[in-house]
């Protein structure tokens, strides 16, 4: 049973292959709505906006917000500052890790309810588990950065998380904090497969900000594989990425 909703400004699809589970899927969508209400920097009444406005002290933040801040800070250290939730104009925007974190939590909710074969896809970042309705591995297509209707690679993540960061849809929505004015027009898309979708997402975001060095950064991370496409249509893959290709 598959359903799609638009939440947080992006299509979110949940597919539970085990059974018809409308209440469970609705519960997951409600979770994403709650995340949006709490973490949206576009909503003046959200917890993150209140924090940025100085109306809530860090000590008084919700457990979810503290959890996300901790993940964002760890990611900043692990990527040598290439992931940074500090905004150029002041305040913080942890949205680079919120999506992966929210997907992971939604997947945890499905598992807690007994689902064994499912995927959660939020804006192209995916946590899958088990098999599809035909009993086969879930197959994820990597979208072409040049032609959105085209797929340039098909992978079976087999329970691992998949996330893609790119400059092609939003314009340069990721920037290099060490050189904010630099255009990242060389690498246009990088897909990361990691232990779970949160891990894949936070390192995909940072790797894109690194430009051409990003795929080498992923190569150096144990348990991660990547596929980067540059503006000229050349793809570079990490050593063991091929093991996921179907």
């Amino acid at each position, binding site marked *: 049973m598959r359903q799609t909703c638009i939440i947080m400004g992006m299509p979110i699809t949940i597919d539970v292959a085990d059974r018809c589970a409308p209440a469970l899927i609705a519960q997951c969508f409600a979770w994403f709505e709650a995340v949006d209400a709490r973490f949206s920097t576009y909503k003046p009444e959200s917890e993150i906006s209140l924090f940025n406005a100085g109306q809530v002290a860090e000590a008084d933040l919700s457990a979810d917000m503290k959890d996300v801040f901790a993940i964002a800070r760890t990611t900043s250290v692990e990527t040598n500052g290439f992931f940074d939730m500090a905004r150029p104009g002041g305040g913080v925007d942890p949205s680079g890790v919120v999506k992966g974190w929210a997907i992971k939590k939604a997947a945890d909710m499905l598992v807690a309810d007994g689902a064994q074969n499912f995927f959660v896809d939020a804006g192209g970042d995916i946590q899958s588990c088990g098999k599809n309705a035909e009993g086969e591995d879930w197959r994820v297509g990597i979208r072409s950065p040049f032609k959105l209707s085209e797929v340039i690679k098909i992978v079976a993540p087999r329970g691992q998380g998949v996330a893609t960061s790119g400059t*092609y849809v*939003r314009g340069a929505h990721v920037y290099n904090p060490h050189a904010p004015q630099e255009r990242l027009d060389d690498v246009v898309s990088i897909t990361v497969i990691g232990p779970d979708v949160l891990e894949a997402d936070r390192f995909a975001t940072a790797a894109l900000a690194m430009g051409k060095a990003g795929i080498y950064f992923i190569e150096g991370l144990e348990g991660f594989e990547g596929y980067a496409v540059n503006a000229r249509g050349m793809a570079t893959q990490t050593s063991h990425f091929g093991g996921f290709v179907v």
Partner: protein
Amino acid sequence: MKISEKLVLVFGGAAAMLVPHAAAQAVTLHDGTFTGGTYDAYYGNVQVKATIQGGQIANVQAVQFPNHSRTSRSINAQALPYLQQEVADAQSGKIDIISGATLTSRAYIKSLRDALNQSAK
């Protein structure tokens, strides 16, 4: 730019400059051993020495490399990771899901909403 600098860039990820496929705009390499400058490779400083024989890269050794973080560990082990490259061509085959950068344009969402509304009927 001197050739030695170009070789250092290989480590930084600009391998496309010097490997097949992208090598069409040929760079002429002269034989010898060249040591590059020291560059910040984000996870620390990197400096390499390359040996060219017959106009081809015969060997690349890291003279200086970072060794303090988990990030750099496996890169160090290989000195120069050679990563496979290919042309990103369209693939066909059965897929369940698509991974791509977040699609947030209003036009896209509007159109998708229409499509979802239609498919919901």
